[in-house]
């Protein structure tokens, strides 16, 4: 397993998309932090950048990478290796590379220019989102046979969680505004990893209450500490469940 992770990484550190992704993140981070004097405002902008870029780039890049390496995967599976080992190694390699890109691009500037607990939370949130959307890409790769459809599914998944879900949530709130829907709403938010990532950071910022309904709800119901633990736990499930399902389905996938 280690061998495969190592060579996937060796391949990816020279990958142009990863390098450009890192560079753009770094450029945005430095300019945003340099521009705004208020550190919490800067972090908020970086949070929005993270929530916008990380899911779509992670899922698209990983899906394309997994589908492009189908032939190589076949060759490796013709060696005496367990299927589970191979798929987990491929996931680990890609997820690791994307995480490094995020940590170098956003992490380094933030830690150097604006170190605080909230900045650390932002990095954890971005990291978890990277792992989640790479895991979803793995699931898409295992479930779809065709590359084009797989990429389509990846785009739809990313758009669903970044844009569509909030719209649905809003219409839900609007439709049921006469009822006490606070608790069901908390449950619904747990179904969207992007929202969880946003809340995790907002709980550490004083602006949580100002930043809309969901942040206020979490703060009110759970307080910062338990709220944070709850969101991290939910996000971990969002990583583990897709990986577990992929490993299971991959056992009987025809290549």
């Amino acid at each position, binding site marked *: 397993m280690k061998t495969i992770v190592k060579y996937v990484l060796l391949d990816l550190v020279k990958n142009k998309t990863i390098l450009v992704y890192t560079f753009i993140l770094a450029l945005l981070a430095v300019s945003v932090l340099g521009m705004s004097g208020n550190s919490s405002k800067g972090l908020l902008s970086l949070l929005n950048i993270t929530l916008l870029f990380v899911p779509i780039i992670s899922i698209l890049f990983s899906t394309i990478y997994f589908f492009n390496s189908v032939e190589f995967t076949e060759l490796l599976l013709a060696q*005496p290796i*367990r299927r589970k080992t191979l798929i987990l190694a491929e996931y680990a390699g890609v997820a690791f590379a994307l995480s490094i890109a995020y940590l170098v691009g956003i992490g380094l500037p933030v830690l150097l220019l604006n170190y605080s607990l909230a900045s650390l939370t932002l990095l954890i949130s971005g990291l978890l989102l990277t792992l989640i959307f790479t895991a979803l890409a793995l699931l898409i790769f295992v479930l779809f046979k065709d590359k084009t459809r797989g990429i389509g599914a990846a785009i739809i998944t990313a758009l669903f969680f970044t844009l569509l879900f909030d719209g649905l949530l809003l219409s839900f709130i609007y439709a049921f505004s006469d009822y006490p829907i606070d608790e069901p709403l908390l449950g619904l938010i747990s179904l969207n990893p992007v929202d969880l990532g946003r809340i995790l950071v907002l709980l550490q910022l004083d602006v949580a209450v100002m930043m809309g309904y969901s942040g206020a709800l979490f703060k009110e119901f759970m307080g910062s500490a338990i709220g944070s633990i709850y969101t991290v736990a939910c996000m971990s499930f969002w990583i583990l469940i897709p990986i577990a399902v992929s490993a299971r389905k991959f056992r009987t996938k025809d290549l």
Partner: protein
Amino acid sequence: MITIQHLTKSFGRFKALDDINLEFESGNTISLVGPNGSGKTTLIKSILGLVIPEKGTIKINKEEIKTNWAYRSYIGYMPQIGRYPENMTIRQVINMLKEIRTDHSRYDEELIESFGLPAIQNKTMRNLSGGTRQKVSACLAFLFSPDIFILDEPTAGLDPVSSELLKDKIIRERANGKLILITSHVLSDLDDITSHIVYMQEGKLIFYKGVDELKKSTGEEKLNKVIASIMKDDYLKNHAN
């Protein structure tokens, strides 16, 4: 060495393999021949465990392969299309395979030398031509001197010199008592190396016979003529079982 019984596989409505029964012994070179989409690659992939059959069993050295994965250490596989991670060099790909196969410490690097790969070993896979990638695939199949070789269109895309080198290697390995399975559309390439022919059509096994027997019954000398006369004639009707 390889025993296949009642092997069946369909993709949706399409039956890729339909109740295939075959038995391959070591020391033979068996060519899988048939039109496109006749199920040759699916058969090969089933033996490798890449395609999971619906029905039937495959045994290698009398052991069923279903839940087992260690049996693949007996097999060297050369895929039809060799695509590798773009930014890896030839040397990295070869080293990666060596590190994965910790069960081996002695390597057969004859083909690597004769194809002249050491001179270009630091080129990345992205910059290689299709033929050179094919050479890398061939080297990887032979690297661990397995007992069974599975070569999917090995000579397609190779230049005549390399193609001859590969054929010589196949002949030598067969003399060492190895079992070799080949699919190819270039029948003239199979002429000197084949001992048996498996002919498939629409997922069905049409016949599995020795080359000498086929040559005698058709009265032809060259393999492509043999196959042509079989396809044209009612050979199948007369000789089927």
